[in-house]
């Protein structure tokens, strides 16, 4: 898997890379693409006599980006360590229910509700991590299995929304400063914290190492299992935060909020769009947030233009494939450069 993206393209004829290309990292490309998308989108929406980035438009984009952003931040960590988590979507539903049911409309139960939801999320992450590291199950299969277990539980016990979030707690979902939702700012704060964690702390460094080459990590004396488990716990906690946020927006818990929005595959798409290698070892949260914003903006533009859902998916697919191909090309160029000096 680790060489998949590097090798699928023929090694390109070596062009002397101008210095200008060095700073053109995937992260930079993502944000350039985001700006381009906003410009193109504004023009298209403008042709219909509407405005893309008015108060409502900004609010719409940021609201969409909040929930997906939280899930994708967690997904970034597991993907960086060379793993994957397909159970996040059901976990979002489950934690929204746990939070809302524990609160049951009482202001005093907000903190216990939040803590319980996060604890359960952490537990699920622990299970994911242990199944992958101790039982040595493939991450794809292991987390799919856990997803199925969660689904079974949800289908058995719930038919629709349940629990009740006190009015005070709903402020989290709806308060805003100008066009900017408070929750979006909180999501960005989580993003900044994760960025710091990944790029500045030892644990973060070690996640890159494990994802880059687990054998090298092992030979360098890193506790590889513990690192992978940690990534999974953090990923699940991020999904838990999403569940809590959505409960506050909906006023109750809903078993399928996560799956209806497709947060499992959507979050992986955002991570990859943000320039993180699906094989691990390279990338980061900054790119992921860019990817999330692109997906959210696309959706908002499509809504404004009232295009049909099928076409919408086609465009998203094209964007994703283009991005990955672009990054792979740049990587193979880098690789060749490194080989023969």
């Amino acid at each position, binding site marked *: 898997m680790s060489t998949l993206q590097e090798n699928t393209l023929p090694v390109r004829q070596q062009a002397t890379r101008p210095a200008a290309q060095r700073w053109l990292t995937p992260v930079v490309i993502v944000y350039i693409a985001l700006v381009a998308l906003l410009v193109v989108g504004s023009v298209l929406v403008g042709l219909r006599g509407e405005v893309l980035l008015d108060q409502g438009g900004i609010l719409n984009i940021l609201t969409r980006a909040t929930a997906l952003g939280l899930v994708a931040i967690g997904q970034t960590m597991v993907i960086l360590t060379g793993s994957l988590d397909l159970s996040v979507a059901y976990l979002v539903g489950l934690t929204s229910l746990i939070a809302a049911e524990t609160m049951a409309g009482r202001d005093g139960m907000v903190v216990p509700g939040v803590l319980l939801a996060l604890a359960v999320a952490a537990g699920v992450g622990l299970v994911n991590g242990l199944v992958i590291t101790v039982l040595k199950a493939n991450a794809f299969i292991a987390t799919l299995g856990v997803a199925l277990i969660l689904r079974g539980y949800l289908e058995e016990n719930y038919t629709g929304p349940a629990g009740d979030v006190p009015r005070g707690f709903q402020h989290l979902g709806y308060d805003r400063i100008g066009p900017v939702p408070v929750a979006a700012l909180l999501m960005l704060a989580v993003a900044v914290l994760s960025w710091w964690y990944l790029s500045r*702390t*030892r644990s973060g460094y070690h996640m*890159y190492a494990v994802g880059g080459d687990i054998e090298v990590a092992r030979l*360098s004396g890193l506790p590889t299992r513990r690192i992978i488990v940690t990534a999974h716990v953090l990923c699940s906690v991020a999904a838990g935060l999403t569940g809590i946020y959505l409960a506050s927006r909906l006023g109750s818990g809903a078993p399928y909020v996560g799956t209806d929005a497709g947060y499992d595959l959507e979050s992986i798409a955002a991570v990859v769009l943000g320039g993180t290698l699906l094989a691990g070892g390279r990338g980061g949260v900054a790119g992921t947030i860019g990817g999330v914003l692109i997906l959210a903006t696309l959706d908002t533009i499509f809504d404004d233009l009232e295009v049909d859902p099928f076409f919408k998916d086609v465009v998203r697919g094209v964007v994703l494939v283009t991005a990955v191909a672009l990054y792979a090309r740049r990587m193979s160029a880098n690789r060749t450069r490194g080989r*023969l*000096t």
Partner: protein
Amino acid sequence: MTPGIATSVRLTGITKSFLGVPVLRGVDLELRGGEVHAVMGENGAGKSTLLKVLAGVHRPDGGTIEVDGAEVSFASPTDAQRAGIAIIHQEFTLLPHRSVAENVYLGREPVRRMQVDRRRMVADTRELLNWLGEDGIDPADNVSSLSVAQRQVVEIVKALSTDARVLGMDEPTAALADHEVELLYDLVRRLRERGIAILYVSHRMREVFDLSDRITVLKDGRFVTCAPTGELTSEDLVRHMVGRDLGEYYPDRAVPDDLGRVRLALRGAGNDRVRDLNIEVRAGEIVGLAGLQGSGRSAVARAVFGVEPFTRGLLEVDGVAQRVTRPRTAVRLGIALVTEDRKGDGLALRQSVRDNTLLVRRAALRGARSRARSDVPALLDVVTVVARGEHQEVRYLSGGNQQKVVLAKWLAVEPRVLVVDEPTRGIDVGAKRAVHEILRDLARRGVAVLMISSELPELIGMSDRILVMHDGALAGELPAGASEGAVMALATGHGVGEVA
């Protein structure tokens, strides 16, 4: 011997099996501070495994390890590091997407106020690099942008940064060019003077005799002998390792009658790494391509094979101009390339020995020829691969045996033009002899061979003509049997044209 921190390590009766197959069967080794102790043996003799046991990577099944007289047991490489033991492994252990400093301090990053102290990490790495005289490497650079030789330097820096008192080096010069080998010698001697104990695994006789104080020989996982270097001759060593005598000779060179048509010709060929190449290689001929690391030797190999194609000039195969822009085209034309980086370019590590051997044949030939596989045992035999069977995964083979599988893979498609880039890197004396004979044999059967090797005696011993590169262009041509001095003069940009 030398004053200072004289550490000693004693391994006694070490045994280790993988899946029931014994690899080490009772090895004894004693290592003192301030000595260079060489370990020699054939491919698969268990040298790397022994080092990994010492490094805490593998747990021995039996036997004891003592450091300064106290018995120790290592559960992980970190334990070994704490006891002052660091190993430079045979395979590269660097993360390509991370910086040099991040690699050097991997697992031991200095922390300040909860954050990795990046400034200190970079400064310390720079200091170590300077100490080695390698200021060309920027600690902030990504490892993927470094050459193979520079990566080796980073590996050494990584081991030194642990303040190791015992340093194991598993074929550290395998990837280095001659002048870099000199630097490494220097470095090893300096470390010895500081009282560090060095365990040195190498297949290169000259190196072992130049550097080591004592030599231990292993064969089939057993301890054969240990003696001071001065008391051994290279013939003794070979006899201990291989179990028979092998004289110091190369197969006979081609005589003019052996030479056939021009199989590979470059006419004014170039791309952005190399320029103005005029090269002819005839059927039956082995042409050596010499030059320093970075002179463009490998770039020629890769261009001929279509990996980074020529953008100017002509490439002719058997007199017909061809556009080789992809390896697949090259293979179809009968061009083969044995790359210098066997793990990266040469092998599918998780596949079996047989699948690897048949890789090119299946991919590039058509019809029944692509499906033939009955000759695999014979091919593996020709290159003397020691594996548990055709179905063993390649990643579990010893380093030298992996190299042999790469060769077998190309023999399987019977090439017309064979380009070999460092074909004997990391393989033992016996196998090296075998590879030399294979190459000469192929030439006799009409193959045109272009050979790159950083080992000058080998290059000179094997070549019918030697082309020397300097800075991306040909610096001159030398006849068979030219002196090392003449080659080096051209390679370093002195000497012009024909020097005999």
